[in-house]
């Protein structure tokens, strides 16, 4: 099947909406995805997971530009004057926009009209998701992004994680118990084994334990932001199992601005600093949040 792009979506975000945090909702959703959930077409690993979709010749728009979009959203969140235009321009550069079903919950009517990403609010089955992917029903949006952003506000990290797990199943890459390393819990680490993807690291490490998630001490986004090697970030020395709530709180902290961050978010302020500095920072925050002593 040769798929024709359905729309070219334009993002219009007013200053008022920016002030209300609409943009940050989207940025946060993407940042959360970077941490733990699925990528569709934004990493080789996930492309393999969704080769079914790729084989259908569906355009996968976020292959590379996802990094640029995150930066653009961040720029908007930083309140740069040109942010609205920059986002519009970023979107206009694509023939089509593919949204990530794991990220955006959407209105059912719009979904039925084929205008918006697949709805996972009701726990959509993976088969349906793939059907929608291959039919082009999903991932192409003609609705205003602020509507999607509003929907994203109710998407929870747990839902994203569930989708990540489902994607793992689809890829036949359920965590391998034989490779699971016991003892990679708060404060302990293995001998620093590196991987080419988070998925590979998770397969090696196995389950983080009930109610827990794997947390990157130096965030995954720093692969792009700071130019760190993937194997340095997707490394057993950089991964720690922490409870889901604390994970969310720490991620939130990295999106906050502090008195020492010179007007930037913690995440942006850390960008460009050495791995060691960022690791030390991450360890200290784990201590602050009571994960380690």
């Amino acid at each position, binding site marked *: 099947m040769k798929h024709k792009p359905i729309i070219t979506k334009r993002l219009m975000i007013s200053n008022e909406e920016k002030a209300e945090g609409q943009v940050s909702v989207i940025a946060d959703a993407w940042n959360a995805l970077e941490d733990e959930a699925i990528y569709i077409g934004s990493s080789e690993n996930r492309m393999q997971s969704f080769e079914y979709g790729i084989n259908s010749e569906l355009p996968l728009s976020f292959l590379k530009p996802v990094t640029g979009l995150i930066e653009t959203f961040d720029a908007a969140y930083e309140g740069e004057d040109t942010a609205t235009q920059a986002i519009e321009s970023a979107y206009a550069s694509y023939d089509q926009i593919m949204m990530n079903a794991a990220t955006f919950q959407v209105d059912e009517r719009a979904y039925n009209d084929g205008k918006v990403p697949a709805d996972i609010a009701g726990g959509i089955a993976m088969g349906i998701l793939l059907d929608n992917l291959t039919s082009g029903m999903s991932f192409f949006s003609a609705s205003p992004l602020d509507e999607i952003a509003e929907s994203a506000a109710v998407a929870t990290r747990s839902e994203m994680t569930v989708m990540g797990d489902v994607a793992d199943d689809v890829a036949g890459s359920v965590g391998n118990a034989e490779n699971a390393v016991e003892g990679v819990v708060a404060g302990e680490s293995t001998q620093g084994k590196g991987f080419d993807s988070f998925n590979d690291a998770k397969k090696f490490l196995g389950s983080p334990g009930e109610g827990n998630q794997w947390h990157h001490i130096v965030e995954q986004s720093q692969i792009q932001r700071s130019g760190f090697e993937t194997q340095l970030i997707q490394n057993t020395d950089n991964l720690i199992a922490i409870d889901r709530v604390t994970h969310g709180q*720490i991620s*939130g902290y990295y999106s906050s*601005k*502090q008195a020492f961050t010179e007007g930037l978010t913690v995440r942006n302020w850390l960008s460009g600093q050495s791995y060691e500095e960022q690791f030390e920072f991450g360890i200290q925050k784990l201590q*602050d949040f009571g994960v380690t002593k």
Partner: protein
Amino acid sequence: MKDINRIIEEYKTCAILHWNASREGDYKTANKNYTKLSKKYRVFLDSEEIREAVLPQLLNDDSFAVILWAAAHSLGLGKDKDEALLKLEQISKMSANEAPSFEAKMILQVWREKGSLTF
């Protein structure tokens, strides 16, 4: 005087909300209050009269979150530096549960590395 009291109360509220939100990972609330505190900083930059009336009181507030911000802003303005540094040193030695100790450490670190703070 009425304005001074209002600024002090608003500043205290923002500083406390910022710290509480930061501890909860509620970055939206944290950043909203960060913006308000930055606006107050600009008021201090513009008005010596206001900063002279407000900052000394804030530096001696009961809340460590308020003291942290007042100390950071004092350093940024180059005002009462010794007292500000002393307060930050004290906060940095406290536990994270009772005070923004990590943030105090980081403010001191940035100040010592760069000799300035921006908001």
